[in-house]
């Protein structure tokens, strides 16, 4: 078994007991990246030299008997939406080409303190906006299971990196499903923690009231290892929860007897792919077999989740992305006017023209679309009808979850209505693309936790994901429920044949 085939949990143990060195481990993953990334394009930047130097330092520390961190020597990939001082942070945007932040994200700081080896920054939809990873200024990402298909998004690079064995652990971020949906489409495990569980400081903001960083890995056990490192209170993030971090691995092996899992009939509507439906139903059956009970619950406002999300997220984004104006950092227009000016020539001042052209050049189409939508929704005369209305519906959506969790411990269901779709299939229809978030946005709107993990494969060999959603701070239960399922199944252990072994 090659090192890159082994689980993160296993590698950490092997590093700890001296079976392998961090340098050997890091070299293996770097070699795998070198071989596979030209095809998959999961990484935007690879810090080979830096990673090997760090690996060597950790090996030396360990050899010298110095105390090392819990992830000591283990390679970790980080979505390029987190600030890193030693690697560019671009958010897959031309706007931030080559941008080097002067500070590390809190999560990156925690990873460094845990002695993880940061191997590189993963591709994503530009500024985390998208569900296919086709909105990257640096090229799309291919799904390792079928190179003609999308890996999902926006954490498509992180998902593909795990699925293609380019890293044992990866950091993703999830605003409306951006960890769980690509995890589902790439056959890996991804957790969106409760809002506030992981610090957002240094996470380049898309939608501040929805964004949350989370772990992506092959298994729930590996996710718990990574969550253990990145979770915790950060006084530098006002929205960070000041709640003690439990031991996420402690209860993984506890059986599921008596666990109440909710099933939402509306999830199984006409849009759901029959193969996906079949695997999801089989997963409920597997849980029953493991001692859980299944209960029908309703989330009456769930159908309004996507429009609610597509008002709140773009509105916040239009403000969060105002800072990219070419004044203090990032791309600035060079002064040459484009041939097609769209009739927009009255800029009031050279400054306003610089702003407008820098932003027009720096942002891709989906980012512009969302800035436009958010600017419109917040503008005078529309605020009440759109943004304020969406906030009211948001409360109803959250209340639905609170009510449901009075009756059940977790809610199960599909992550996506279909398996991975063809590249280019939805790029011309923004609303169709937005509907890929149907099952995932509720979690973010309610601020609760959700996990996605593989629960089967289609006849065509594409992974199918299962999602569990749980109340605030239910991460131990979400991880345990996923882990118990993975103890009884091997979907998460299957490797793609679309890439050379």
């Amino acid at each position, binding site marked *: 078994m090659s090192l890159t085939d082994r689980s993160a949990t296993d590698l950490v143990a092997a590093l700890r007991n001296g079976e392998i060195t961090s340098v050997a481990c890091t070299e293996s993953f770097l070699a795998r990246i070198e071989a596979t990334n030209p095809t998959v394009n999961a990484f935007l930047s690879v810090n080979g030299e830096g990673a090997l130097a760090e690996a060597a330092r950790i090996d030396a520390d360990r050899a010298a008997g110095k105390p090392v961190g819990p992830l000591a020597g283990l390679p970790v990939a980080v979505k390029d939406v987190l600030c890193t001082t030693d690697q560019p942070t671009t958010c897959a945007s031309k706007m931030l080409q080559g941008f080097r*932040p002067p500070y590390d*994200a809190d999560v990156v700081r925690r990873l460094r303190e845990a002695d993880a080896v940061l191997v590189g920054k993963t591709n994503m939809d530009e500024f985390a906006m998208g569900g296919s990873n086709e909105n990257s200024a640096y090229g799309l990402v291919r799904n390792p299971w079928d190179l003609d298909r999308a890996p999902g998004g926006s954490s498509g690079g992180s998902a593909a990196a795990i699925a293609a064995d380019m890293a044992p652990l990866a950091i993703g971020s999830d605003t409306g499903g951006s960890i769980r949906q690509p995890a589902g489409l790439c056959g890996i495990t991804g957790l969106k923690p409760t809002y506030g569980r992981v610090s957002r400081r240094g996470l380049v903001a898309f939608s501040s009231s929805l964004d949350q960083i989370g772990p992506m890995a092959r298994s729930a056990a590996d996710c718990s290892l990574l969550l253990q490192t990145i979770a915790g209170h950060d006084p530098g993030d*006002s929205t960070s929860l000041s709640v003690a971090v439990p031991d996420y691995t402690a209860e993984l092996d506890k059986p599921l007897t008596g666990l109440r899992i909710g099933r939402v009939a509306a999830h199984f509507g006409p849009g759901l792919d029959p193969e996906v439906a079949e695997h999801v139903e089989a997963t409920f059956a597997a849980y029953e077999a493991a001692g859980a009970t299944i209960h029908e619950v309703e989330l009456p406002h769930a159908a309004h989740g996507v429009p609610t999300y597509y008002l709140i997220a773009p*509105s916040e984004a239009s*403000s969060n992305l105002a800072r990219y104006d070419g004044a203090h950092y990032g791309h600035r227009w060079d002064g040459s006017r484009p041939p097609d000016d769209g009739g927009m020539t009255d800029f009031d001042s050279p400054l306003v023209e610089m702003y407008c052209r820098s932003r027009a050049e720096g942002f891709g189409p989906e980012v512009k679309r969302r800035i436009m939508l958010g600017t419109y929704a*917040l503008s005078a005369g529309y605020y009440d009808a759109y943004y304020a209305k969406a906030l009211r519906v948001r409360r109803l959506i959250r209340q639905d979850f609170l009510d449901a969790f009075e009756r059940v411990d977790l809610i199960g269901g599909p992550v996506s209505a279909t398996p991975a779709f063809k590249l280019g299939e939805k790029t011309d229809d923004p609303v169709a693309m937005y509907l890929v978030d149907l099952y995932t946005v509720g979690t973010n709107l309610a601020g609760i936790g959700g996990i996605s993990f593989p629960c089967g494969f289609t006849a065509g060999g594409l992974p199918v994901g299962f999602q569990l959603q749980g109340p605030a701070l239910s991460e131990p239960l979400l991880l345990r429920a996923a882990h118990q399922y993975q103890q009884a199944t091997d979907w998460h252990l299957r490797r793609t044949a679309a890439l050379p072994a």
Partner: protein
Amino acid sequence: MTAVNIPFTTVIGLEVHVQHQTRTKLFCGCVTTFGSPPNTQVCPTCLGLPGSLPVMNRRAFELALRAALALNCKIAAFTKWDRKNYFYPDLPKGYQISQFDLPFSYEGHLEVGDPKGAFEPCRVGIIRVHLEEDAGKSMHDEAAGTADSRIDLNRTGTPLCEIVTQPDIRSPQEARAWLNELKLLLVYLGVSDCNMQEGSLRVDANVNLHIPQDDGRIAKTPIVEIKNMNSFRSVERALAYEAERQWGEWQATGAELGSMPKQTRGWDDAAGITRGQRHKEESSDYRYFPEPDLVPVTVTDDQIAAIRASMGEPPAVLRKTLEQRWDISAYDADVLVNQGQELVSYFEELATLVGEGKAASNWMQQDVLRCLNERGGAIADFPVRPTAVADIIGRIKQGDFDTSRGREIFTTVIESGKDVADVVAGMGIAAVDDGDLKALCAELIAANPKIVADVQGGKEQAAGGLIGQAKKKNPNVNPGKVRAMVLELIRAMP
């Protein structure tokens, strides 16, 4: 101008921005020192770098509460922050964190009067006070003819209270007096140093005229917002200019409120005029929405009580207290209080030592303040402490020397740094004993039969002629005692 011949009422509302005296910025740990080299007090948060987040400065919020309580505002039990979105290079996030629909305080008032009665005391309503972050500075050297502006973000994120008044002010003079009172209050509370030169207090004014018509209707001129006033004197001048300008325009055009959008005019202090500024329709759509990176703040009655208890007496209350406690005039109390808390403390220490307020108040105003103004600096650094002044006043009272001699001693104490007893000894001042005084007076009476005759003829004030002579012979004699002794000796004459 007198009210009688002005055919209109000037209606003024003010919008005041006050920087808080915190060590650090509102949302990050950068210091707020004025005048540092550009971009030396900046960090990812106040630079608006990707991924940076704000965390509210507790002290800034407490100072804001203090200001609002002193302005008699209601404090909201629940308050939140909002983003005010606009693009400007001194605002690196592209939005200002401010307060929109739920400011932390509202509906207050601050009264101002004039102890000399130049205008009726007036109560100016406060619509709201809210806490927001300041923007940075743009510098453009037009003379150099460069195409670029230079942006310094040191000031970005400095805590700022915005105080918005009702249009309750009725004259430029009142506006200035009210601003003085506001400044005094905020300095008393330690909220702000209110230094206009350093930009820690900035004022915009809204003004229009209400003009009674023959048919009883009140015509209102369009409201103009005046900016760029960098002293209270400028505010007064700009408002006076603007009232005259609007009156002229009204007579020429008859344009009334509502016939045009609100105009912004900048005050040109050197030229003494306001000039129209370009208005941008589009820029006023600020797209406010709740700031998702901050959480709301709730304030309990206990917290309000604790802050109230720590505030001390605001100037208006302190004036009354001093008037009553020390039996001084409203005018005197006003002069003392307007000099600030430290001077009031000095005065109270002095009055306590002297045992009465009037003498202490006179010495404060005629001597301490005069010297302080001549020397410059703060009362805390004034070389003559209240004990020394009390010593001088005490010696005057017991007749050791007169007030003018006391002033000489006071001046010498300042100049020499010696204590009062040494100065008195050094100047050869010693109390004249009663025997010596009697001998001196007898000698003068003998030498001035004309004065004696006048006094005996009923003109007692003629005795004053002997006081000057007595002082020539012995500078230490007490004039009152000389006068009393002379009269006594003359009466005793056969």
